[in-house]
């Protein structure tokens, strides 16, 4: 995929000119003196290679791998907090010999939203704002790396990190369900839906967090912004849905749910992924409302990607 600019032997074999003279200029007076330095003759790796490296590097950085021991504490602790309840759920299922998991994979993700929010609030500014703070972005863009490739790498790494964060407990739940000898077909179906939910959740939340983190070089602001963006609308939606429920205006709760990323995911998993919603009264949005939920999610994902692209348009930053 990355073809080398010049095959290693082409120069020497072609003209017989000494190494160091640019090909095509011949041996005219305009030559650079060859003072004996070796040229780089290896493969030239382009933007795609940088993208992959940046993605892997960011993904590792989010979990503190390759960073100081202190940076590993928070992500690893949060990861443990995320997985432990899944193990407990499995243990309870096995001990009580229940016929089904007390909560499905997609419901589990929604239940653990506060933990995910903290993880993302710690991860996104670390992965994105610090490049702005330490002025490393111009260094990245001085390489053969396109703006869209940088954005894709950072966004992708964040989404992948979040997917790992949410999918591992889903795997634990699935493995536990199989060990408890629950119905195989049932559980595999739930697991697949759960993974779809994790992927959708990760891409949406990573996009919003990345867009916020890219707009401030200050880590503290980034953290605060991400947490506020996820929690304040969620509490607002919960409070308003509670009021609507008190007023017997159940139809409105679905539309109110559009106003926060958390309730957006809740509605989608209730409508399409076969989970129970946590909306008041356990109401599942009907198919029409569900389609609006999906559309809004897609719009938010695309919107945050374009916001990121626009943010990096100026090279100086």
């Amino acid at each position, binding site marked *: 995929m990355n073809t080398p600019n010049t095959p290693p032997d082409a120069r020497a074999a072609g003209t017989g000119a000494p190494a160091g003279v640019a090909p095509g200029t011949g041996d005219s007076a305009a030559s650079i003196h060859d003072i004996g330095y070796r040229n780089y003759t290896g493969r030239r790796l382009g933007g795609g290679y940088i993208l992959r490296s940046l993605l892997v590097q960011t993904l590792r950085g989010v979990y503190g791998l390759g960073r100081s021991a202190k940076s590993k504490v928070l992500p690893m602790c949060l990861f443990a907090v995320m997985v432990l309840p899944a193990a407990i759920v499995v243990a309870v299922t096995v001990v009580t010999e229940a016929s089904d998991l007390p909560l499905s994979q997609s419901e589990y993700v929604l239940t653990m939203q506060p933990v995910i929010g903290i993880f993302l609030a710690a991860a996104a500014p670390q992965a994105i704002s610090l490049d702005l703070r330490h002025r490393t972005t111009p260094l990245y863009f001085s390489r053969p790396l396109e703006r869209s490739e940088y954005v894709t790498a950072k966004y992708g790494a964040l989404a992948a990190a979040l997917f790992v964060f949410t999918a591992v407990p889903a795997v634990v739940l699935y493995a536990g369900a199989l060990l408890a000898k629950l119905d195989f077909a049932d559980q595999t179906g739930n697991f697949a839906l759960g993974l779809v939910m994790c992927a959708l959740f990760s891409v949406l939340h990573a996009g919003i967090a990345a867009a916020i983190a890219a707009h401030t070089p200050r880590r503290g602001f980034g953290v605060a912004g991400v947490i*506020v963006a996820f929690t304040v609308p969620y509490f607002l939606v919960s409070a308003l849905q*509670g009021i609507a429920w*008190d007023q017997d205006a159940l139809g409105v709760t679905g539309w109110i749910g559009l106003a926060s990323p958390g309730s957006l995911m809740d509605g989608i998993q209730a409508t399409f992924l076969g989970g129970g919603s946590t909306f008041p009264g356990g109401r599942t949005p009907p198919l029409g409302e569900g389609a609006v939920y999906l559309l809004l999610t897609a719009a938010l994902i695309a919107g945050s990607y374009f916001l990121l692209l626009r943010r990096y348009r100026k090279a100086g930053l």
Partner: protein
Amino acid sequence: MFDPTVARLTYRGLLGRRRVFLLSGLPLLLLVIAALVRATVGADDAVTANLLTGFGVATMVPLIGVIAGTGAIAPEIEDGSVLYLLAKPLKRPTIIVSKLIVAIGVSVVFTAVPMLLAGFVLNGNSGQLAVAFAVASALASVAYSALFLLLGTVTRHAVVIGLVYALIWEALVGSVVPGARVLSVQQWGLSLAERIAADGTGVSSSVGPVAGVVLLVVVTVLGGWFAGRKLRTLSPQAGEA
């Protein structure tokens, strides 16, 4: 114990540039929601109490507390400019008290006033709800300011820890787990709201008003005192590694 210059600098740091938007965003949101709910639902005591508790006392007040409390000192410690302040011939407790008073002032103004307004918008202060919630949020703001100011002197991750505390402990655990409620600033503030509000309006707290006020005072004084102690031995560190 109060230095006007430190207070002025803190005040300008708090309300300067983007922070003022952050600070006024939530109260504005509360007022907009209040107006919307009043327009669609009409005046209703239960709805008022529900909204002012769920969004106001549980979400807005702790968040403003975090922004004002940590914002009063944490940025200076982070960028190292606190050294210039500490080098002045001022006692450390004086610096803390001045900053604390400003943080309390700012957070009370940005919480109690919008709560009072929202209460009037929602049901015209029927059942004394608007006054009750304004008092509750003012009291809670005082304690939050001291608590988060202390946090700002203790750790460089004050904003994160403060937000986690404010949103996870106060909003989720404090509203769900019964035992944890006794240890939540929100409930201490609400204890007075329960006293002021008329019966049957749905305002409830898990601690008595006397205990609530005593706990609030204890937390505020202890927080301020300990922050002063902490500032004495502060060793400025380099930025994020």
